[in-house]
Structures are given as structure tokens and as C-alpha cells.
């Protein structure tokens, strides 16, 4: 029994050493990466959202135009339910 516990302790020490080694390498890689590619305030509209397909801009434009139209046509939204609003 004692031998196997000793083995377990050895495995543990070895493993922790490996984990810290691997993650330390990762830390330095990330730090390097962040240094090489610093954050820049978005020039206009940076890396936009990733929703299913479709071109967002268009949708918005269409939405705005249709909204104006429908308002002028006196259309009123009936019973509806917003299932999903995603903010960009």
C-alpha cells in the first residue's frame, strides 16, 4: 500500500510540474501575442457579430425602410412576441 501511495505522490508532483510548465509556456505565448497585436479602438465597426448568415447591414436598412413605410401605411403590429433580439 505504502509503495503505491508513494507512487501516487510522485505522479502528482510530476503532473503538477507538467501542468505548470505547459500553462507557463502558454502564458508567455499569450503575452507575446498581446504585445505584438495590441488592441486598437475600432476604426469604424470592428469584427462584427457572428449570427447565422445574412448580411446585418442590409437587414437593418430594410428594417428601417420598411418601418417608415409601414408606419405611413397605418399598419400596426398585432399580437407579437420578440423571441430574440441580439445586440451588435
Amino acid at each position: 500500500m505504502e509503495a503505491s501511495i508513494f507512487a501516487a505522490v510522485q505522479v502528482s508532483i510530476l503532473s503538477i510540474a507538467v501542468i505548470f510548465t505547459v500553462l507557463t509556456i502558454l502564458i508567455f505565448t499569450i503575452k507575446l501575442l498581446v504585445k505584438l497585436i495590441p488592441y486598437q479602438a475600432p476604426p469604424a465597426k470592428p469584427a462584427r457579430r457572428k449570427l447565422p448568415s445574412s448580411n446585418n447591414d442590409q437587414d437593418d436598412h430594410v428594417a428601417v425602410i420598411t418601418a417608415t413605410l409601414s408606419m405611413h401605411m397605418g399598419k400596426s403590429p398585432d399580437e407579437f412576441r420578440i423571441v430574440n433580439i441580439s445586440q451588435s
Partner: protein
Amino acid sequence: MKEFSFGESTAKILTTTGFSSLEGGDITMIFIACIMLYLAIWKKFEPLLLLPIGFGCLLANIPMSMMANTDAGGLLNFFYQGIKHEVLPPLIFLGVGALTDFGPLLANPTTLLLGAAAQVGVYMTLIGAVFLGFNMQEASAIGIIGGADGPTSIFIASKLAPHLLAPIAVAAYSYMSLVPLIQPPIMKFLTTEKERKIKMEQLKPISQTVKIIFPVIVTIVCCLMLPGVTPLLGMLMLGNLFRESGVTGRLHETAETHLINIVTILLALAVGSSMTADSFLRLETLKIIILGLLAFSFATVGGVLFGKLMCKMTGGRVNPLIGSAGVSAVPMAARVSQKVGAEADSSNFLLMHAMGPNVAGVIGSAVAAGVFISLFGDVAILEPHASIADIVGSVEPGAKAAIAQVVGALHP
């Protein structure tokens, strides 16, 4: 049906009811299944997993239902192949990656060390498990409970100790739900009021390019060093790349919703189907339950103590409370850090700071799993998928040798 008789048929129906072979073990397991359903539904213990696990357990323990994972040809045995062939946990991780924002980790990469420190729980438990008589593979699988990562636990258990899959999975998911109960006393015991009041400076924003490159870097660095963990870590990072790349919206959406949901249903039912009386009502299960609690506690201790060390070394700029989030259990553990911090000073917002070690904990556990696979996993024994199995390879050793001999004799 040639010789049908009323009496015989009645007898057949009676002898094929589950009652006819219902034993104490089955009843106990059905009772345990109901407890799991109760915990999932009314106590909200990881319901997305515990509910189908509990229901799978219920089905598996109805005698003659052919729903146990060992019933060849049964429905849940079919799903179980997805665990045995190590397909389902990586697919879950694909979804987890798609759901995870590594931003806070990138803003403060040093917190990766907290994710490493929390793995100390894994090793305390491993030692404890060996002490209680488990062999090294079993002890490793039990230890991983301390990683607080369901799919990782299932992956490692099915690889190193498939006979312990059921109690390990149940312990992992149960204690994950108990994080808000297990952690706070330990955190308060190990930290001073002053430490808990430390406010951390705001995280710096991270370039989207870095967020995109990160999953690729992690895959290359970690998987090169610990190739055994590639199915898990690689899928996690692919899911994250779907998320961050901004060009695969369709795949990202599917990975984080319906794909992960479908896989969760199959995985959880399969885990439940492995909870048969034979495999679950053993002393080992009790030991694993106790060791699991130990695992979570020691992981918390490890994280907080390393947090204190980082606090010291940075001259008090790190609040040690974020260390406990290193156990993963995303995002619960981070919320616990936030809550305990706010108790000390209601204007202290640790949530985002704790998200760093929190997601680091996922990577940390995966790396720990990789070490175990390197040490104890014999990749050569991966079972080939059915369609490519040549017959000589998929038979029990005896028959295999026999056939090989025949073949050899006939084709010298």
C-alpha cells in the same frame, strides 16, 4: 406461436413483466434515479445533465427493458457507443468552446496559473483514492472529478476506468451544482477580510485578432505537448474559433445550440444507462462520492492559496478570492467569487476578473487529463470503429488467435 394456449400466454406475460425479476438492487437504483430527478428539477442541480442521467438510470434499472449500457442491441447501449468510442465528450466540448469567451483570460493571462493551481484537488484526490485501494488508472479518473468538468471526467473515466464511469459522472455533476455551497466557507476560512476587499483594476480590452489566434495557439502548444488530450482540447478550441472568427456564424450557432443539445441528450442517457445496480451499488461508489467532495474542496483550497501567493507577489493587486474560480464549473465558480467579494465590500466587482481563472480551469483540467493519458492511456488500445474493423481485430482474443491460426494454415 404455433402452439398458442391461453394459460401459457398469460404465464408468458406474467414472466416477462419487470416484476418477475425485480430485485432489491433495481428498486434501490430506481429510487436513486428518482432522487436525481428531484435534485435536477427542484434543486436545479445541473438539470441539463442530471435530469437525463437520472431518467437513463431509471430506464436502465427496469428489469428486462434492455436499456442498460451492457444490453447489447439495446437503445441506450447504442448511445453508449458514443462514450465508449470517445465521440460524444469532444462534441460537447465543441459546443462549450462555442459558448466560452476567453477574453478575460487573455486580458490577464497570468490567471492561467490559478487554473493550474486548482488542479491540486485532482492530485490530493488521486492520492486519497490510491490510499483507499484504487489502482492508479482508477485513482486518476476519480481525481479528475476535482477538475469540475463533466465531459473531461467522462472522457477520462471511459478511457482509464470505464467500470467507474457512472459514479464518477454523477459525482462530477452533483458537486458542480454544489459549488455555491462547498466553496464559500473554504474561501472565507483561507482569506482575511482585508484580502477579500481588494479591488482589482479594470481588464484591458483585447484585439479581436488575438482572440482568433488564441485557440489555434492553445491547440498547437498544448496538443503538441500532450497529444492524448487533442480530441477534447482541439474540439474546445475549434468551437471557440467558430465563435471568434466571425466568418462561421452558421457553424457557431449550431455548435452552441442544437448540436450540443442533441449530444447532451445522448451522452446523459448513456451515462445514466451505466448506472446499473451491479456497477453502482458498491462500496467503490461511496468512496468515490466522498473522494469527489474532497476533490472539489481541495481544488478550491489550491486555487485560493495560489491566489494569496499571487496577491503577495503583485503587492496586493490580486484578490485571492478569484483563485477559487480556477476549479472551472463555469460560470458558477466565478459568481461565487463575485458574491463572496461583494459580501466583504459591496462595491467590489470580481466577476470579470474571476472569469479568467474560471475558463483557465477548463484548460487546466484538460491539460491534467492529457498528462494522465500520456502516463496511463495506451493509445494503441483505441477500439477501431465498426466499419473499418477487420474481423481478426474485433474478436475476443481466443477466437482471434484461432482464426488467425486457421488463416495462417490455409494461406502459408
